């Protein structure tokens, strides 16, 4: 008994709430509607209210006609809105694409002069003290430039194996310079080397790790590069035990470029993840759809 009474009460309450919401939405509408529209609406409403009393059968016809008109007009308006939305979206997307392309070409020309000059200074020194080592570093530098300078980039650059090879060259140079301050490990299963992987992304992550994580750290540290596949996702990690991440530091040209390019190439199917493990350092991961051979479309 009590329950039913309570049910009725809550139902009445709901009806009351709905009514008040409708009343207030009407009130809002009244506040905003232009005066002319209000007059026309008022006359129409007045006629509508009077006709049933005077001509019942005409009233029914009138109701039917207005309902039909409303449906027709509503459909047309909806189509118009959809079309406009699509046009705006297409416009902004093509604009974004052009913007990203512009930024990319700017970035591609970037080989850090500091790195280049320091490596050349090292080679110059090694020529005197250790010529075979100098020749090795020299070869690594050529390898690095071949992959980095946009004019030199060849079509075969788009595989993980090629990117790893380039990373090895870069890391070998950095190890020759930083000596015991830099330890490196690479764990990439050979069967993943033919997988499609966009150029320069791994390189950007590694350079970031060294520049922001390890170079500022007095005792240096290590950098681990791993690639793995789970399901249809290829994940490449670059992890360091450096000084970690400053939340106020800007996103930088490099990471922004990686993120934008991933979005452009794979939409939401790819991801750039940046994490700080509990035991310090920083881990950056790129996850893209796994395409085992170079003929597969990204």
């Amino acid at each position, binding site marked *: 008994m009590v329950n039913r009474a309570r049910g009725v009460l809550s139902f009445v309450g709901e009806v009351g709430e709905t009514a008040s919401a409708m009343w207030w939405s009407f009130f809002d*509408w009244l506040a905003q509607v232009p005066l002319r529209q209000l007059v026309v609406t008022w006359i129409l409403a007045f006629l509508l209210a009077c006709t049933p009393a005077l001509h019942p059968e005409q009233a029914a016809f009138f109701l039917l006609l207005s309902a039909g008109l409303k449906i027709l007009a509503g459909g047309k308006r909806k189509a118009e809105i959809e079309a406009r939305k699509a046009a705006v979206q297409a416009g902004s997307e093509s604009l974004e694409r052009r913007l990203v392309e512009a930024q990319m070409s700017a970035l591609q020309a970037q080989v850090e002069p500091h790195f280049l000059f320091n490596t050349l200074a090292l080679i110059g020194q*090694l020529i005197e003290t250790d010529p075979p080592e100098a020749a090795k570093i020299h070869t690594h530098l050529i390898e690095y430039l071949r992959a980095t300078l946009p004019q030199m980039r060849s079509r075969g650059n788009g595989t993980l194996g090629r990117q790893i090879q380039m990373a090895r060259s870069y890391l070998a140079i950095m190890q020759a310079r930083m000596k015991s301050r830099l330890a490196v490990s690479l764990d990439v299963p050979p069967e993943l080397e033919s997988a499609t992987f966009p150029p320069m992304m791994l390189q950007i992550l590694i350079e970031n790790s060294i520049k922001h994580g390890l*170079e500022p750290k007095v005792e240096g540290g290590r950098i681990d590069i791993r690639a793995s596949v789970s399901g249809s996702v290829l994940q490449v990690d670059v992890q360091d035990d450096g000084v970690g991440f400053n939340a106020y530091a800007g996103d930088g040209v490099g990471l922004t470029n990686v993120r934008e390019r991933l979005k452009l190439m794979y939409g939401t199917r790819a991801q750039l993840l*940046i994490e700080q493990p509990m035991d310090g350092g920083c881990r950056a991961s790129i996850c893209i759809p796994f395409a085992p051979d170079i003929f597969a479309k990204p």
Partner: protein
Amino acid sequence: MTQPKATVIIADDEEPMRDMLRKRLHEAWPELEIVAEAANGIEAIALAGQHQPDIVFLDIRMPGLTGIEAARMLFNRCHIVFITAYDQYAIEAFEQGALDYLLKPVNLDRLKTACGRLQSRLGKTPNNIERQLTQLLQQTGRSPAGAATPQPEYLHWIQAQVGNSLRMISTKEVLFFRADEKYTRVQTAQGEFLIRKTLKELEDEVDPNEFWRIHRSTLVRVDAIAEVTRDLRGRQMVRVRNSPEELEVSRGNTHLFQQM
């Protein structure tokens, strides 16, 4: 060459570079005694305090303290020579400020000239180069106090606990923040994260041109806004890209979208 036996400390984070400089110095100035070598700025200061050298060679880019920061602490005790492979701004400043500097790889003739200049100055008090150093520090974006922390600007990364790690989410990836009881929900195109930072704290820390407060419980990234519409009740509703959620604009904030 009957000079008093001068002492020097070499500071460079790259061991091969120290080797090279040591070798060249032996050739250019055989009487010079290398009393210590440092691998970073902090070590350089400590060793300088211990050995009281006449001269210190400082690489500019070093971990711990940069060469310029270290020089600020040492310049009134010994003669400073900077070494660098590539530091565009610094080199310009050196030339204007008449500071001694060497370019890597160190050229023997150039080093001999520098050593000659140092020899003539030994025994005199080192030049007061504080003004130039302060200028240099400002140009290279460091605070003159010598602290290596750059001025915090705006928050660019949101930290969210995911499993055993802190996920760093770039503010450029965030679509909006919504207050969600005790937590704040961070919405990205990929998913959502809960963080403990309150909306008020976030609003104070992020770039106000990047995020707008449109509602008591919503902070939206301006770039992510796809469109603003009015619903039947006349409320402005914001739709962001890559999310089906509609965000209400409260009455007090409708001025944000007046012309839209």
